């Protein structure tokens, strides 16, 4: 009886081992190759899987071993992931934490175990978290951070909306208290203020955020609730959440027949964005930031290689630009170079690995659809 069941299980286990060795054979010969660990909220959702794509490409190009730990942005699991990766013998870690305070533990762990660490999508704010900031400066193993200027991003999106005539703007976020969201929120508010200063007799309002989680069905439920409660909104900002929240929100607007009436902007690129833009489902979108971890990866890689020096009184900070897409044409181009293909091919990645920090920073700043276009057309 129960032996049958056991047998089934054992077979399953065997399979999974075989399967794992299928794509795990790199780790078997981990002797000389550097090993870089990625601590990410999820390597499977829309944004996460894109990050994984580009990182895997880079790892392949530079012949580096790479391993992932999903921490779901749960604080204790974020800190634990750093320990797991150090224990696994990583030479460097790139991490996307949820709250800045976690970095204290992360940086300490890495310092103790002589593992280099860089943040992506996140930065420690000097004002809000002075201690963490100081620690980051002090630690020779904290390489640096790659992040977007979330506040500007927020401002821009609001500006786009207001220009398109939106005056009552609802806000749907994913998880309460998430560091990135809080920054973007500041941005939105700043944007509104700016607009109201310029147009005192034509003010715009921003509603308090509601939280739709990171799945599309909760995203839709929340969006519907928002619209039901405020039938008169003419714009909705979906702050992020990996893309699925946005998918849900659009579904809601769709099924309520408000497509085009409610302008939607967001900061996660949708797979079918072109359609949405064409049909007026989306007003504008910022994103393309899935290359952000790539630069964090490069920082850590070069530091391991010894090309970059880390010091006890500074760290590298790379600002990563958002790409803005507000028309199907834009998106067509974006899709060509960012969806169907990766913005950097193997050679470019290898070449990128040889750049100095300054050039790398420039490289990051210069990333844009046109930039890729030129590179491709150059060849």
């Amino acid at each position, binding site marked *: 009886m*129960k032996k049958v*069941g*056991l047998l089934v*299980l*054992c077979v*399953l*286990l065997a399979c*999974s*081992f075989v*399967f*794992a060795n299928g*794509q*795990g054979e*790199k*780790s078997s010969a981990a002797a000389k190759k550097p090993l870089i660990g990625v601590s990410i909220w999820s*390597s*499977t959702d829309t944004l996460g899987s894109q990050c994984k794509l580009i990182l895997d490409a880079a790892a392949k190009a530079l012949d580096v*071993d*790479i*391993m*992932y*730990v*999903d921490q*779901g*942005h*749960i*604080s*204790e699991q*974020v*800190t*634990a992931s750093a*320990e*797991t*990766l*150090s*224990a*696994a*013998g990583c030479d460097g870690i790139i991490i996307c934490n*949820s*709250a*800045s*305070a*976690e970095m*204290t*533990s992360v940086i*300490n*762990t890495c310092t103790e*175990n002589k593992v280099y660490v860089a943040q992506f999508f996140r930065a420690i704010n000097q004002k809000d*978290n002075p*201690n*963490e900031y100081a620690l980051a400066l002090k630690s020779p193993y904290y390489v640096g951070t790659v992040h977007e200027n979330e506040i500007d991003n927020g401002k821009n999106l609001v500006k786009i909306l207001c220009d398109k005539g939106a005056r009552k703007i609802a806000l749907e976020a994913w*998880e*309460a*208290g*998430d*560091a990135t969201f*809080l920054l973007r929120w500041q941005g939105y508010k700043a944007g509104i203020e700016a607009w109201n200063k310029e147009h005192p007799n034509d003010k715009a309002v921003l509603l308090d955020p509601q*939280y739709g989680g990171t799945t599309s069905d909760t995203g839709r439920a929340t969006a519907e609730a928002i619209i039901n409660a405020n039938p008169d909104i003419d714009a909705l900002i979906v702050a992020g959440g990996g893309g699925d929240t946005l998918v849900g929100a659009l579904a809601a607007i769709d099924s309520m027949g408000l497509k085009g009436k409610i302008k939607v902007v967001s900061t996660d690129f949708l797979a079918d964005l072109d359609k949405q833009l064409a049909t007026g489902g989306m007003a504008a979108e910022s994103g393309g930031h899935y290359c952000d971890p790539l630069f964090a990866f490069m920082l850590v890689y070069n530091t391991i290689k010894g090309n970059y020096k880390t010091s006890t009184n500074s760290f590298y900070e790379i600002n990563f630009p958002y790409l803005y897409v507000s028309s199907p044409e834009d998106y067509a181009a974006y899709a060509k170079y960012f969806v169907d293909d990766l913005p950097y091919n193997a050679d470019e990645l290898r070449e990128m690995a040889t750049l100095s920090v300054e050039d790398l920073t420039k490289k990051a700043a210069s990333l844009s659809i046109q930039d890729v276009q030129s590179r491709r057309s150059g060849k």
Partner: protein
Amino acid sequence: MTEHTRNTATNEMKVKWWELPWLRSFMPLFGFIAIIVVFSILTDGKIIRPRNINLMLSQVYVLMIASMGVFMIMTVGGIDFSQGSILGLSSIIFCWVSQRSIGLGILAAVAAGAAMGSFNGLFHVKFKIASFIVTICTMYLFRGLCKYITTSGPVPASVDVVALNQTWLKVLLTIVVLSIGFFILHFTRVGHDLHAIGAGETAARFSGCRPDLTKFLVFTASGAITGFASFINVIKVGSITGTAGSQLETQILIALVLGGMPISGGAKSRFSNIIIGTLTYSVLEKSLPMIFPVSATQQLVKGIVFLIVVALTIDRKSLRVIK
């Protein structure tokens, strides 16, 4: 009918060699050792490298301490799904109070935990609602508070808290808590009451135990213990977001079961279940990523290993009806 139940019970009592009690009680240990061995081989020794021991154990402290509370609850035959939320909420309390004084913070956290635990206990005991249902409701209740409080951003703890994030301290605290627990469960009547109540509540009542009171206190105590664990959680994390402590309850359940804890509680539950279980769990947790670079695979293996270990080590004799 009673006659029937007894017959069926005795029919199940065919003693096979692997059903021998002394062997049974060691099964989880064997499981643990087996896992250690297998994974040391698979990770070519990474996990037993002295440098790593510290890292391997980094996650275990909170889990182990919190598990002790749930261990008591499960011994009396209950179950608690609100642990994660309790941890989250009392962590927040700690963060707030720690701004004033860390000592007070700890007390506050423990008090908060106790309050939440007693809330569970009250509904379970007074209104005779299955602990399973009560704690799922309170899981939502407390989690809701957590999220609400952290709406405008994570709750930071006082800056000196993170300085306490020392391994020796965590180890010390864990040992202290565990030994207190061990002491109480083994050298006072509490342990015996818990076993008796879990094994046969009515009979225990007729032997002078106070099942209702005891259960209530157990829930309260478990809450308080988790409240204390929140202190260790915070010194590790530094600030608390709405998701703090999520899934702790499931981790505890998995850990205890891996440790050989009979889900139906009773006399066969041993203190060692806590230690072996939590250790096994964190070894799994830590070593799988070393072998499998992809998180999905890690989890697949985790799930199957869990099922195999349980299927091999679980004591079916103690459960007449398998629910």
